[in-house]
Each structure stands twice: as C-alpha cells, then as structure tokens.
C-alpha cells in the first residue's frame, strides 16, 4: 500500500494521490503559501527514518511532584533525536479509587514497558495500600536494579564508587499486612517466601555474570531475625553455588551502612531484601552525589518499568525549574537500552556524562546554579552535535 521510494513515501490511499514531490515553480513559494494555496501539495520535508515495525510504544505515567516536568524533558529529548519510541500517557492521581491505576496497569500489560514518576497516595484510611506498592505487586515486578556509578566532577563525599544494588521489590516489610489490637498495640507482618527470594537471587547472579561483576554481597539481619532473613540468606548461598566464578559473601545491614559511609569502594553487587535495599539506596545516593542523578529499573517476568532511583515526589521543588532532570534522563537511557535502541541510548548517555563532568552544568542539589532547562538544553545540544 505504501512504498518507500527515494523521493519519499508515495502511494495510493483510497484512490487519491497522497503525496507528490513539488515542481520547481512550486518550491519557490513560502511554506505558508504552499500550505494554504495548494491542498494536495505538502512542503517536502522527509520525516525521520521510521523503522517499519520498529517503533516501540511505551507507557508514560507522569505521577506527581517533579515527575510530569522531568518526563516532559524526556519526551523533548526523544523528539529531538528521533528515538523510535511513542509514549502513551496515562495519568494516575493520588486518590485511592483505583480506576486510574488499573488503566495504567492495562496500558503497561499491553506495551510491556513503562517509564514513570512517583505516584503519590493521599488517603486517610490506614489500611489503604500505597498505589506505588500496588503497582509493583500487580505487575509482579519482583526485582529493582540500581546502578550507581560515580560521576567525576560532581560534588560528593566519596569518589570512584561502582555499586549495583539488586533489591527485592515485592515482599518483606512492604507486604503491608497490619492489624491492631484496639489502638494500643499493632502487629505488622514481614513475609519472606522461598520463591521470591530464589527469583531475586537468580536474577542477581545472572546479572553479575552478564555484566562481568566479581562479587555479590547479601545484606541481611539474620542474627536477629533468624527465620526470615535466615531464609533469604540461605537461598542466596544456595544459588551462589551454581555460579562458582562469582564470589559471594554476606554482611549485616548495620555494618553494611557503616562500611558504605566509610569505604563504599569495597562493594560490587549488593543483594538486599526490600527495606534494607531502601536504606542502602539512600545511603549510597547520598554518598555519591544525591537523589537527582540515578535511575532504577523494575523488572518482572514480562514487564519492565523505569523510574528515578529515589522514589519520592519531591513536591516542594515541583514546577520551579530547579529539579535535577538527570535521574529521569538516565531512566530514559535505561529504557532505550532495554528496548534495544543502543545507538540512541548511548548518544543520550554520552551527552549526560559530558554535561555533568566536562561542562559542569549542575542544578541546585549538586551545588550549582543551573536550572533544569539549562541541563536539558545542553543535553539536547550535545545529542544533536
């Protein structure tokens, strides 16, 4: 029906000529004149080369706080470099009627890939499940991977840090199963299952093997919580035996935090349950430059969702053009790598590194004075160069 020829797309649609290359006389007219005077003749600007069947549809969930503006920047960058990604925008609000959440879930199930900001939850009901947590549970996104690599030249307490945190994303303390005896005593259940621990451990070791990492450290508190963290630890040790080329050791969470503050360069891959992963992420982020720089990837069996590493909306700085857009841009780079568009991903990645390290355009959280748009503009300029 449509044929790709040297002069552009030509073809017949419903027996009407669709496009025609303008003659020389017609091309001396202005664009406006061409548009208004001649119906059938359109100004000839070839569109970017769309891979036939190679455009991906990706769900985009703006969420709250700085999410919408940062995702806006991502769309701008993608448009400029012509990345073959179409975004399907699904708004999810903070109220706990889960209609918009199920729309978002349907969209992700259809597209299999998503990128999101932080979904806030405002509810007075104590037993209401957090929308972010419900999101992960329903899509069975069982593991959260965060790659922390220091950027040289960014203000930070520690340098040359290269840590990957593989964090269990579903259960543990985030099971949100609570009940109270009257108002004066509350019990909260922390659940660990063998299946989930096994999945996460396998993922971690596979990831380490694929990315040529040498050592996986399990973070736990099995001296106090003998059964629960003991299960996690024993499953990890079991899986470690199947990967003899990768060293495996374990460390208690409080010792781990202390070591991360003093000497984070000693760690390679950290494999953690849910809450400890949250704490360790916060510590590592703080030590190498802040919440605005890194992104995380949620992986499930079928789905992948990308977001900034620190899951908070940062509402106080929303809309003021001072938020650091690098986190969301890094999430978009992860997205492109996942989809297989390596060239586009590398282009944006190189632009980000150059902006931070050489051009040193830093927003307020890194101690600089640039606005978000300055950073984005620089990234775009470098991408086009």
């Amino acid at each position, binding site marked *: 029906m449509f044929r790709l020829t040297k002069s552009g797309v030509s073809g017949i649609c419903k027996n009407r000529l669709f496009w025609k290359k303008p003659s020389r006389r017609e091309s001396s007219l202005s664009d406006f004149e061409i548009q208004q005077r001649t119906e059938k003749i359109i100004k000839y600007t070839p569109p970017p080369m769309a891979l036939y069947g190679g455009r991906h549809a990706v769900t985009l969930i703006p969420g709250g706080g700085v999410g919408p503006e940062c995702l806006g920047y991502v769309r701008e960058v993608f448009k400029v470099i012509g990345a073959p990604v179409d975004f399907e925008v699904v708004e999810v609000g903070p109220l706990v009627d889960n209609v918009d959440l199920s729309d978002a879930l349907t969209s992700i199930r259809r597209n299999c890939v998503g990128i999101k900001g932080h979904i806030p939850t405002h509810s007075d009901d104590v037993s209401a499940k957090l929308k972010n947590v419900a999101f992960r549970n329903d899509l069975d996104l069982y593991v959260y991977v965060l790659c922390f690599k220091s950027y040289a030249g960014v203000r930070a307490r520690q340098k040359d840090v290269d840590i990957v945190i593989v964090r269990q994303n579903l259960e543990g303390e985030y099971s949100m199963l609570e009940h109270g005896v009257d108002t004066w005593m*509350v019990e909260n259940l*922390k659940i660990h299952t063998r299946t989930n621990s096994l999945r996460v451990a396998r993922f971690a070791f596979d990831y380490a093997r694929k990315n040529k990492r040498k050592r996986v450290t399990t973070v736990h508190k099995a*001296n106090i919580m003998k059964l629960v963290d003991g299960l996690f630890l024993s499953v990890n040790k079991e899986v470690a035996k199947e990967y003899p080329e990768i060293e495996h050791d374990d460390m208690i969470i*409080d010792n781990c*935090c202390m*070591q991360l*503050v003093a000497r984070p360069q000693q760690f390679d891959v950290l494999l953690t349950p849910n809450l400890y992963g949250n704490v360790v992420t916060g510590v590592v982020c703080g030590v190498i430059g802040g919440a605005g720089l890194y992104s995380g990837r949620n992986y499930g069996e079928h789905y992948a969702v990308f977001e900034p590493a620190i899951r908070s909306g940062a509402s106080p700085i929303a809309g003021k053009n001072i938020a650091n857009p690098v986190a969301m841009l890094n999430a978009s780079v992860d997205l492109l790598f996942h989809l297989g568009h390596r060239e586009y991903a590398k282009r944006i990645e190189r632009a980000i590194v150059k902006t931070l390290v050489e051009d040193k355009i830093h927003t307020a959280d890194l101690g600089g004075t640039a606005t978000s748009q300055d950073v984005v503009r620089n990234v775009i300029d470098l991408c086009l160069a």
Partner: protein
Amino acid sequence: ASTRTVGSRLYSSEIKKCTIIPGDGIGPEISAAVQKIFAAAKVPIEWESVDVTPVRGPDGKFGIPPAAIESVNRNKVGLKGPLMTPVGKGHRSLNLALRKEFNLYANVRPCRSLEGYKTLYDHVDVVTIRENTEGEYSGIEHEIVDGVVQSIKLITEDASRRVAEFAFQYTKENNRRKVTAVHKANIMRMSDGLFLRCCREMAEKYPDVKFEEKYLDTVCLNMVQDPTQYDVLVMPNLYGDILSDMCAGLVGGLGLTPSGNIGLNGALFESVHGTAPDIAGKDLANPTALLLSAVMMLRYLNLNKHANIIEQACFDTIKEAKYLTGDLGGTAKCSEFTNQICEKIAAAI
C-alpha cells in the same frame, strides 16, 4: 551528657557498687583498662564482675545465669563489654535477652566528631535514641507453610510513649534544640503511625523543643550529605539499629562510640563494637568506646566532676595523636594508651 536518674540519690562520699560484664574477645582487656583509669581518677565506684555466658536452666532452655541478674538488679547500674551472638541459629541474642530482662527501654547513642581523628565528616553531633524492647526485634517468627516465613513487628503505645518521653526529656536536660522522629509510616501505616502519634502527643507537652518527622530513606540520604542538620533522632528498633551504626560510621566507627541503655529502674552502659576475636589477648584493642560509655555512666550517677576529668583526658590523648591504637591509625598498644590517659588524669587532679 546527663540522663535522668531514677531511684536513690547518690552522695559523693559513698562508694557505689556497679556491675561490670567484661564480655568476650577483647572484652576482658578493655574492661581492665577502664577499671585502671577509674582507679587513677579515684572514682568512688566498686566493681562487681559477673559472667553472662548462658547456662542451661532447670527447664532446659539457655538463659542468663541468675547470679548476673541478681547483681544488676541490686546495683541498678552496669557496664558491659562486647558479647558474641551467633548468626542464624543457636540461642537468642544475649544482648536482646539482657534488654528484656532489665526492661531497658531506650538506647542512647551520642555520636560526636572527635578532634584529632579526622573523618570525611566534621562537626557531627547527633544523638540517636532508639526504642529498645519491641518493634522488629520482638523475635516472634513462624514458618507458615513450607517456603513462607513471617516475622511479626510489634509496636505498643506504652513503649512508644516511654521512649518518646525519654527523648524529649533528654533533649531538654542537655540543652539540645530539635527532635526528629524517624519512621516509615507511608509503608507501615498502622505500626509506625502509632509510634508517630505517641511522639506527636509528647511534642505538645514540650513546646520549646522543636519536633519534626522524616522518612527513614530521607534521613539516610540527608545524614550522609550533611549530618549537621540533625540533632536528636528518636525511632523504633530496627531503624534505630541501622541509623545509630551509620552515625557511628560518620564519626569513625564503633570503636569510638559510647552507648547507654536506660531502663525503668536502672541502666546498662555498653560498648557496641564486636568482640574482635582476631586481636583478642594481644593488647591491641582500643578501649575508647567502653571508656566513653563508662563516662556516660558517671554522668548518669551524677558524678560529673570525675566524668569531665576522664573524658577530657581521653579526648586530649586522641587529639595529641602520639599514642593511638591500630584502628585509629597508630601503633600504640592498649596499655600504652591507657597509661597516657592515667598520666593526664593524675596531672588534672
């Protein structure tokens, strides 16, 4: 820093009996060092040494020997060295058992930067107050079905209220400005919500102390970037464990951090580092942590004059940096370090 004393008043001419639990590994040598320093400072304390190695009770379960329990109940104040806890199996943690036994409901850990020992963080002055009896460390665990295990986190209003009151009292007595409650009430809405409610109620009773609530990951992130923004932190058990160790890491590690456990009718001060079995018996250990905990104990007993002398001697020795043990980057032996402090005390008296 002083903490509220409960029980009888202490007169300075009276000799007070204190229990000392040397512990395992390097415990005995650092306890001996502390006793030597106290003797040099002529502190009116008589030490009663007990051993808490678990013994099999009449019901077959392992527990703390009754002699130890009687001793601490009688003296009401104790100093403890490091104890060993095996991972994953064996008897329950002895530290936990001691806390349960003596109803020690609050753990206070002041983390202050030491002059003379430089870390990446300067001017750290944070006190972490952690609820000590319940929370995630209740030890209630079950295997529900094969492959699914659960642990129960218990939060009660009584315990939360007690520790909140202690936190505000401590802040007021030590002229500190701000109390921050650390929680994860977005995830654990009911349990941490109850804890927060108790903190808020207490905050209303102390209007001149500033109060704020922060999420755990936010506190971790900010603490590591700028520790000066926090003053006193109060939190449930697990978060307290993680944060207090992290703050200790900011000032130089567990080898330099004192710690006190306050109970309803007594207190137990301890060093929180491990037993360091690799350097046990070789006279290489650093007694600073146990010494500073002992100084906290003196302040608790209102023996402030002696506390100040000993603390100043210890800080001066570290500041001079001539006799530092291995973990602080020096080559001195434990005994040399101790002797230096004794000399300074003798000069001060």
